[in-house]
């Protein structure tokens, strides 16, 4: 199936600003899905609120554009009720980790099979450039006009600590790696997190004097490195890219199937003993 068949052309052009990285995430995601060869009817995309969330409207899957921060909670209900569906949950950084932080860690802990994508542009773009929990100390924003004193989460460390069974990170500059990691995350049976560092030249770039979208992409190239590289040993400030965790763990829906079996066996035993089950 061609990439174009995965999008709803009726609703283009999209609302993202010129230079925004979110379209590149969409591109990488669709290439990953095409490579795996998933049918459009078996994919459900659930998004929250913000620039990132609009991605759901443009893809021709079963799509749900929900409320701020709660995408993973909606996705949990969908997956649990129909485990055969593939759940993809793109979120922004504020969406996933500020208002949605609690849902994020609990979804990771539960290990239900779905792919959470954190489109991290380090800013609330749709509301015009306020700092997010991923902006980081010293960044400028409309709500930190004298510099930000909030420290940032490390999405990878947070996800690992919360129990995610697949954790990856890449950037919009590394388009091929992005498609590759997303593909592996989607195939992975369990809760997968992919942080994609994405540029927002309009809100984050401008306030932090990071230049054009091209400059910001160059910045991703220069300030990131593959996991465990020599460059990282020399310069610990570099941000590592790649797959940090990829492990087999009991998946929630499969585990619940066992609960169903156990509950049904209980009924059977009691019946044999001639007891009537009221509860």
């Amino acid at each position, binding site marked *: 199936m061609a990439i174009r068949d995965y999008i709803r052309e009726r609703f283009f052009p999209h609302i993202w600003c010129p230079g925004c990285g979110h379209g590149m995430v969409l591109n990488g995601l669709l290439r990953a899905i095409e490579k795996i060869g998933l049918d459009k*009817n078996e994919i459900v995309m659930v998004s929250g609120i913000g620039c990132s969330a609009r991605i759901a409207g443009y893809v021709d899957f079963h799509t749900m554009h929900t409320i701020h921060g709660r995408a993973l909670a*909606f996705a949990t209900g969908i997956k649990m009720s129909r485990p055969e569906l593939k759940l993809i949950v793109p979120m922004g950084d504020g969406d996933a980790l500020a208002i949605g932080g609690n849902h994020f860690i609990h979804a990771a802990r539960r290990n239900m099979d779905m792919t959470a994508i954190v489109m991290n542009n380090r800013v609330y773009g749709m509301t015009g450039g306020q700092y997010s929990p991923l902006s980081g100390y010293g960044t400028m924003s409309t709500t930190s006009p004298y510099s930000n004193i909030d420290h940032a989460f490390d999405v990878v460390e947070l996800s690992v600590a919360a129990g995610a069974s697949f954790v990856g990170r890449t950037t919009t500059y590394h388009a091929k790696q992005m498609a590759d990691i997303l593909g592996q995350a989607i195939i992975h049976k369990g809760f997968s997190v992919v942080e994609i560092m994405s540029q927002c030249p309009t809100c984050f770039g401008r306030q932090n004097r990071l230049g054009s979208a091209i400059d910001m992409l160059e910045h991703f190239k220069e300030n990131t490195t593959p996991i465990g590289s020599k460059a990282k040993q020399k310069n610990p400030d570099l941000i590592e890219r790649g797959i940090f965790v990829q492990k087999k763990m009991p998946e929630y829906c499969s585990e619940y199937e066992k609960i169903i079996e156990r509950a049904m066996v209980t009924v059977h035993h009691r019946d044999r003993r001639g007891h009537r089950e009221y509860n």
Partner: protein
Amino acid sequence: MNENLKFIQGNEVCVEAALYTGLDFFAGYPITPSTEIMEHMAKRLPKIGGKFLQMEDEIASLCAIIGASLTGHKVMTATSGPGFSLMQEALGYAIVAEIPCVIVNVQRGGSSTGIPTHVGQGDVMQARWGTHGDHAIIVMTASNHQDVFAITVDAFNLAETYRTPVILLFDEVVGHMRERIFIPKKGEIPLVERLRASVKRGVDFHPYLPREDGRLPISDFGGVNRHNVTGLAHDMWGFPSDNPQVVHGLIRHLVDKIQNNTHKIAKYKEYYLQDARTILISYGSAARSALHVVENRRSRGEKLGLLELQTLWPFPYYLVQEKCADAKYVVVVEMNMGQILQAVKVSVDRPERVFLANRIDGVFITPTDIRNILRLIEGKGV
């Protein structure tokens, strides 16, 4: 012994009724006095192959059942005041995206975290207007276990009929009280199943274009018709729109589909209303005490009657006006500061003759409390 005869808590009756309708998905978060509902669901659902989820909070609980409803399941969550407050945003989402679901609020006493193990009826207005923006909502209640069963089944039927969340506003007394109940046989109460879209694969599908009769068929997630679901104002494709005509049409549709059918939705019970000079209007557990007073006074020849409301919203203004037309006094019996009182005053021709008999201290309103108010109204002193 009839095996359909049980002596159980109201919360468990609600579970029995939900399962009777074919519910097979529940998500919740523990909160007094509704917790027994989720405990029974956790035990019962896997036995029938259904799914139970304990979520990280009430917000996630409602979100999860909305998601599960979209895949074609009958769903429910249960909570009490503080949890109901947390659910308000997702409730609005379900209203605007038109996703059927049932939300039980077993009301506790007091405001804020209040008095969790005591009774109150203070969430009536929150159930009506708790979520932001213009909308219509269906809110139902019951005073005894047989009615809890019937009303719960009805809530699922209405949710499917009108593609909307329905709120079951029970209270601590009804939820925790044990009482006799006959579980109806399968088929005894008619069930409304989901109206599904019959559009074939490849045909342009308009998920939000209502039929001529106002009903909106659903296409399940995972089926052949893929569509977008959003809480933003949306067009007939479910795609966000700020076109004034589209937005106007959407709000009118959401409000009209419920308000225009108030006469079909409204459920109530009446006792001795034909010749009543004084009419008590009550609902939920408070109606039990009100009924006691009415029957007690009737035996002494006094012309008292009771109108027990089971549908609180949309409020049946026409019904209250009609039933109270010849009454000298109307007394609203409720355990709050007069939330239904206001709606009753708007309904009747002589609002100055409407009085309130209430309790707001977490103690169940007694027949004596109501009698004292009646004596004051009748000028007999306390």
